[in-house]
């Protein structure tokens, strides 16, 4: 039995799942879009599967995520709907509930956050609300993890009954429009009520049209225009959508008045005007405070000293190299596997996958800390503080979280863009974030700085990080002036109450993201490692050959002349860049192997700088490209994300070479 689970964003859905689910599985994506589909199994009611719909305020889609809701209501087969509601924001949450209840499908409204509402001095009369809305209503507090809440939910879900569809008294022109559209669709078969569909069309739900007979679309659109004209002419509202919204709002206000009961007079403390916010969103102090907090987060996850992240990653790396790889190697030799196959498993697969997977502890810790910041409500303040600066480049205040994550690893940074509602701004952020210097580029910087720029270590390092940031901002500006015109023009954010984040929820969120990292990065790295190792160990003359005779060397020698103007037109440097596509750290190991430990002799100061800059910017690693593909769902933009950085890197490296040689000539 399938139940759809719907609700506004931030209503405590993850906490709710913690309370009621046994396990959950990903069952691929919703058809046509890139939104992940997840099914949760209810503890104590094995037959029930909850399909998790993306958080939305409205059935009408504003974003791709929200389009899934309309699709599911129209096309999925389900027994009923579970609607989770944040009791402290009852009025707003009921807008979605009303739309769902107008469907006339068996529905269970779960009023979550009972405890928070009680703290504000209120309770909700669930029985009365149920009778006014024609639905089953329960009040729970998922945060407190009480068994009785879980039992109440299960028993209500088991006894869910069909109710009469909710009917609101919409203005006459809308009623007329509903009837007209209903008549036009008279002979079509659909699983939802046609009157509901008609109302959704009038509201502007474009997602519905995809499921209609094309020949009728034009006539339906005419009806919509006619209704809109009458709404404005008769002075009912500013727009058709507004008229529907207002009818619902009045209905909801009436209901809330009857069901929300004040039991204790408490001074309503404003979320914003707390003393803390005076500093945190301060026009001058806000940004330094933010940088200080981020510095601490980085120090803990990626720092050089006293960092649990680095410590665990080192430990994991040692385990991988000294124990796992060693014993697998010994085992392979024991069962008689050596030579080519041995090399493929040890130097190809284990080394390639290990190079990336060993960053897992750092990534878990980073996500854990970011989840804490998000959970407390701080990140919303950061978005506010940074909005003014970022909007100048076509970003949105909300882009700041992915950008920060990008200094750690680009893959989770791209995943973090999901909170950006505007599609243009989200794409812009996804396409420019790979320029931000992720931690995998650090080894490349370090090796070259050690050899060539020992005197100016901090200066060069800072320069390389700034270079990445500048290219990010420059590219964003360029894109926002061209293809993504109008990006960054709008910003509105809800200021949440400061909350004490729950350890359980945060751990759950961090592990969920870590799992995705392992899965997505893992599969591609594995395949990529195998291909790259094979290419550098097989040649026209067969296997077990010198590296100069491998296909990799042949391909690299063919490509390398294009790098001659940049000062590193040889096959070793080129091969390293090709392998770097797998993971940027691989560049370092490739250089070491191919130059046989003598990198110093192969580069001049200028070509070294040019190479480092190029290696940092040229193409995102394969896991990033895979993530861009899965998050944008677009081959075109994925291709762009590979080609554009290459061009930018080439220009930057060429400029460095030109300026460098110029300075040398003068000196």
């Amino acid at each position, binding site marked *: 039995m399938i139940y759809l689970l719907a609700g506004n964003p931030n209503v405590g859905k993850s906490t709710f799942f913690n309370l009621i689910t046994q396990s959950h599985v990903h069952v691929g994506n919703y058809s046509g879009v890139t939104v992940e589909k997840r099914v949760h199994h209810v503890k104590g009611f094995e037959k029930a599967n909850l399909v998790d719909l993306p958080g939305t305020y409205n059935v009408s889609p504003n974003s791709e995520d929200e389009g899934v809701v309309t699709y599911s209501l129209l096309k999925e087969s389900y027994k009923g709907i579970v609607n989770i509601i944040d009791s402290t*924001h009852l009025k707003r949450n009921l807008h979605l509930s009303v739309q769902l209840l107008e469907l006339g499908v068996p529905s269970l409204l779960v009023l979550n956050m009972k405890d928070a509402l009680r703290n504000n001095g209120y309770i909700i009369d669930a029985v009365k609300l149920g009778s006014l809305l024609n639905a089953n209503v329960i009040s729970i507090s998922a945060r407190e993890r009480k068994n009785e809440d879980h039992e109440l939910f299960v028993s209500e879900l088991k006894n869910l009954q069909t109710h009469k569809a909710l009917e609101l008294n919409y203005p006459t022109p809308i009623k007329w429009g509903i009837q007209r559209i209903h008549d036009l669709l008279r002979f079509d078969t659909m699983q939802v009520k046609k009157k509901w569909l008609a109302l959704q069309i009038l509201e502007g739900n474009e997602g519905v049209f995809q499921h209609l007979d094309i020949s009728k679309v034009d006539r339906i659109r005419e009806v919509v225009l006619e209704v809109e004209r009458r709404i404005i002419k008769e002075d009912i509202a500013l727009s058709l*959508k507004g008229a529907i*919204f207002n009818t619902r709002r009045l209905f909801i206000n009436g209901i809330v008045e009857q069901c929300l009961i004040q039991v204790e007079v408490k001074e309503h403390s*404003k979320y914003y005007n707390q003393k803390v916010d005076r500093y945190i969103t301060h*026009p001058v102090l806000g940004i330094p405070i933010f940088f200080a907090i981020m510095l601490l987060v980085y120090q803990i996850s990626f720092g050089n000293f006293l960092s649990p992240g680095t410590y665990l990653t080192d430990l994991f790396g040692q385990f991988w190299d000294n124990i796992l790889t060693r014993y697998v190697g010994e085992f392979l030799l024991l069962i008689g596997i050596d030579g080519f196959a041995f090399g493929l498993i040890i130097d190809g697969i284990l080394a390639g996958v290990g190079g990336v997977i060993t960053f897992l502890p750092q990534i878990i810790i980073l996500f854990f800390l970011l989840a804490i910041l998000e959970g407390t409500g701080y990140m919303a303040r950061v978005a*506010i503080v940074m909005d*003014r600066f970022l909007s100048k480049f076509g970003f949105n205040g909300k882009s700041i979280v992915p950008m920060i994550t990008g200094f750690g690893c680009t893959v989770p940074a791209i995943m973090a863009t999901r909170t950006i509602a505007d599609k243009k701004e989200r794409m812009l952020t996804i396409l420019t974030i790979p320029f931000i210097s992720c931690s995998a580029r650090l080894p490349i910087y370090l090796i070259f700085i050690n050899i060539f720029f020992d005197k100016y270590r901090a200066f060069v390092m800072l320069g390389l990080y700034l270079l990445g940031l500048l290219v990010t901002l420059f590219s964003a500006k360029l894109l926002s002036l061209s293809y993504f015109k109008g990006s960054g023009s709008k910003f*509105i954010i809800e200021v949440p109450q400061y909350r004490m984040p729950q350890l359980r929820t945060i751990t759950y969120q961090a592990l969920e993201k870590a799992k995705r990292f392992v899965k997505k990065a893992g599969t591609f790295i594995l395949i990529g490692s195998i291909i790259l190792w094979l290419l550098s160990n097989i040649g026209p003359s067969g296997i077990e050959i010198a590296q100069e005779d491998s296909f990799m060397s042949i391909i690299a020698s063919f490509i390398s002349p294009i790098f001659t103007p940049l000062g590193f037109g040889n096959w070793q440097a080129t091969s390293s860049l090709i392998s770097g596509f797998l993971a940027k750290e691989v560049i370092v190991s490739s250089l070491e192997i191919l130059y046989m430990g003598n990198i110093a002799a192969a580069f001049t100061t200028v070509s070294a700088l040019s190479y480092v800059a190029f290696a940092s910017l040229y193409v995102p690693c394969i896991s990033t490209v895979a993530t861009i593909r899965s998050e944008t769902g677009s081959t075109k933009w994925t291709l762009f994300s590979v080609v554009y950085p290459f061009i930018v890197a080439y220009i930057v490296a060429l400029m460095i070479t030109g300026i460098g040689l110029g300075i040398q000539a003068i000196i």
Partner: protein
Amino acid sequence: MNITDLKRDEKAQITSLGNLDKKFIGRLMDLGIYESAEVVMLNCLTFNKLYVIEVDEIELCLREEDAKQIEVKK
């Protein structure tokens, strides 16, 4: 008058959403900002470039240029 004319803690009723684009109005509506809704001005930030308002007990932050489009009456 519009939202930016309100003083801190002043209450008003929205009368029109001016020339904001349709899609953005949709987002504002999702958050409860629409004609006849009551707003309370809570604060202005970053040198009056951002405004924090309250609608239906939800606190929201929006930019000056958008806030200027939202007409209100006391």
